[in-house]
């Protein structure tokens, strides 16, 4: 092979012939004795990583000798040299000799697969594992900060908050967290749980409920969020996802990084829907433990759907809407909850009516209700009285 040799001491190029022999390369100038070197194969390093026929090798200690090989036979020779090199170096050499089309499609396929599994599988997993290492006290502290930041929208009613907590205890729900419940005078039809045991219920939602066990179902759902550390997991997942994406965005140019971030955000929503479903399931379990009517959860969602007008929206846009939402579609939720209850004989238990819980709910509902709805309440009150009377009679009979 013909090559150009540099001795490392000066930039003078020597045209040399290179012959492979005795486990190495014999390098010599053809018509003089100026250069006469032997390179041991095992110590030859590949330096170049360039397209085309040119290959650069280096040898020895500093100042390194260098050899620029060109022309026929180089690729065959390189295969031998690369045997001692790392995977990365082999790959780097190979891609300079792969057809562009193959390279582009191959790269897109590999990149797509890896980034997909990273966003949707690996980063969520790391995030959730990280949560397990965080002690409850830290989670509670973080929750307090989040709660303080939104306390201005809560507009808490202290007396009613105490009643809600009593309601919670009467239902027999339990938690490792110190559960605190806020009754918000806000008209929103909503409720949420903050990491560390803080639950907030808005008056609008209480007004929507039509039976005490619907409120119990709601409490069960929010308690499930707390006990399963959903919001905290969500937080950890977003952070791990963001951290690594930000390392990558140095390499993957502008617009692509926006797409990656949005994919990540959409995945967060999918994940949030998963948590909602989990909270429905665990909440249902709590209802079972307290022998509260499980169908109350379906009723609760019926009220929510009536309020939000979701039915009409989904009829128009279709159920694809769900992908861009943090919650499952209410119709879907009602369906799967019904399936769970029907599919599991364990839910065929005799329902208990927890009197204290009923009383509290009535009181809250009474004070929250619109004048128009008061009639309904009167009716319900009468019904409960009848029931109470019956029970009294029963006890007397016994």
């Amino acid at each position, binding site marked *: 092979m013909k090559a*150009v040799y*540099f*001795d*490392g*001491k*000066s*930039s*003078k*190029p020597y*045209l040399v012939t290179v012959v492979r022999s005795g486990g190495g390369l014999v390098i010599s100038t053809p018509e003089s004795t100026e250069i006469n070197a032997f390179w041991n194969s095992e110590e030859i390093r590949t*330096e*170049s*990583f*360039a*397209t*085309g026929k*040119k290959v*650069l090798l*280096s040898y020895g200690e*500093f*100042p*390194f*000798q*260098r050899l*620029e090989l060109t022309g026929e036979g180089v690729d065959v020779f390189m295969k031998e040299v690369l045997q001692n090199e790392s995977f*990365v170096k082999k*790959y*780097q050499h190979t*891609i*300079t000799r*792969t057809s*562009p*089309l193959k*390279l*582009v499609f*191959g*790269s*897109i396929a*590999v*990149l797509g697969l*890896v*980034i997909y599994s*990273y966003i949707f599988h*690996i980063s969520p997993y790391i995030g959730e594992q990280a949560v397990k290492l965080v002690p409850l006290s830290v989670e509670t*502290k*973080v929750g307090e*900060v989040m709660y303080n*930041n939104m306390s201005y929208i809560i507009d808490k009613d202290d007396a009613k908050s105490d009643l809600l907590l009593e309601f919670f205890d009467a239902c027999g729900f339990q938690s490792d967290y110190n559960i605190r419940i806020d009754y918000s005078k806000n008209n929103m039809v909503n409720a949420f749980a903050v990491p560390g045991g803080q639950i907030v219920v808005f008056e609008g939602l209480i007004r929507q409920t039509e039976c005490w066990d619907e409120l119990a179902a709601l409490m069960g759902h929010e308690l499930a969020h707390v006990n399963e550390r959903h919001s905290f997991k969500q937080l950890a997942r977003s952070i791990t996802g963001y*951290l*690594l994406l930000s*390392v*990558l965005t*140095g*390499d*993957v*140019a*502008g*617009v*692509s990084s926006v*797409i990656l971030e949005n994919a990540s955000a959409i995945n967060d929503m999918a994940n949030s829907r998963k948590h909602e479903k989990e909270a429905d399931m665990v909440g249902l379990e709590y209802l079972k433990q307290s022998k509260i009517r499980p169908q109350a959860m379906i009723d609760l969602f019926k009220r929510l759907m009536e309020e939000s007008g979701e039915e009409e929206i989904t009829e128009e846009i279709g159920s694809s809407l769900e992908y861009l939402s943090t919650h499952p579609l209410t119709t879907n939720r009602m369906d799967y909850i019904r399936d769970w209850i029907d599919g599991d004989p364990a839910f065929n238990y005799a329902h208990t009516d927890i009197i204290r819980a009923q009383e509290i709910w009535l009181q809250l509902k009474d004070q929250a209700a619109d004048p128009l709805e008061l009639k309904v309440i009167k009716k319900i009150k009468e019904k409960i009285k009848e029931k109470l009377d019956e029970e009294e009679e029963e006890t007397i009979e016994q």
Partner: protein
Amino acid sequence: MIEEQHLDHNATPEPVKPRYSNLSFHGQGSTYFGIVALNVVLTLVTVGLYYPWAKAAYRKYLWNETEFKDSRFVFNGTGKEMFKGFVIAYFIFIGFYASLSLMALWTYAWIFIILFYILLIILIPFAIYGTWRYRITRTSWRGIFFTFEGNFKEFLKIFVPQLLLTLITFGIYASWMRVKLMKYLFSHTRIGKIRMDFHGDGASFFGINFVGILLSYITLFLYSPVWIKDRVNFTINHTSLNDGEQQRYLRSSLKSGEAWKTLMLNFVMLVFTLGLAFPWTLMRTFRMYFRNTWVPDEFDFDNLEQSEGDFRGATGDEMGDIIDIDFGF
């Protein structure tokens, strides 16, 4: 080709009209894309720790595809060397975000934030000096390493007043500052006995930037490629080489038309591929810059001598290893 390069400039007593050779760039988008793919995969798998090695791979490729007088440049740096700078940057990054989150939990965390900003400002001269020094001393051509003979204390003596002036003038002085720093870095860089220097003046550079920014806004950035061209040409045309006997300037042949066509097409390519065309646009940009950079032929490029001592050792620089880092944020 190689024989032709022996220029007999001693034979002519009268100054000859200078002849030039240009650099050339041979990188291909598809190959670069292949490098990106592997780098991204390994960076993800190692939770980001592979990043310095990825950076070394990009550089090795870019350097290897750059050619002057039939010989390619080589980047001799390694991921291992850059790992140090990376760890520092990583901890600053994490520390900064940790303090930001602390702010929510603890009222006095803003003290940390301010400390971090101060730390960042202190790190700027380290980053500029260290990055230049690192890149220069790890670059070789025909086996001959570039040498940097700066002194960090000297550099700081220039840097600190320049930074203060820039802050006081709300950034207007930045053009002058940049020229001063370039002068220092270039004039302490050499290969063999050929020493670089920089002769640009702040006022002209300010003029280019002032007109460039103004017209860019007026023309809704259609003028921006011309501004970029002016900055590049300003840098190249004011850079000289000196071998102790003669001083000659580099020349740029980049014209507004070529810059405009190349950079605008790059922009369109990026928009229509949602950014995925970046390996190709990057290669196009390098190709444009290098083929328009002309180096005077009067120097004896065949007899550059290697500096004594290992390129990894510090020369005239007592800060030594501490600033042998490459940030490249």
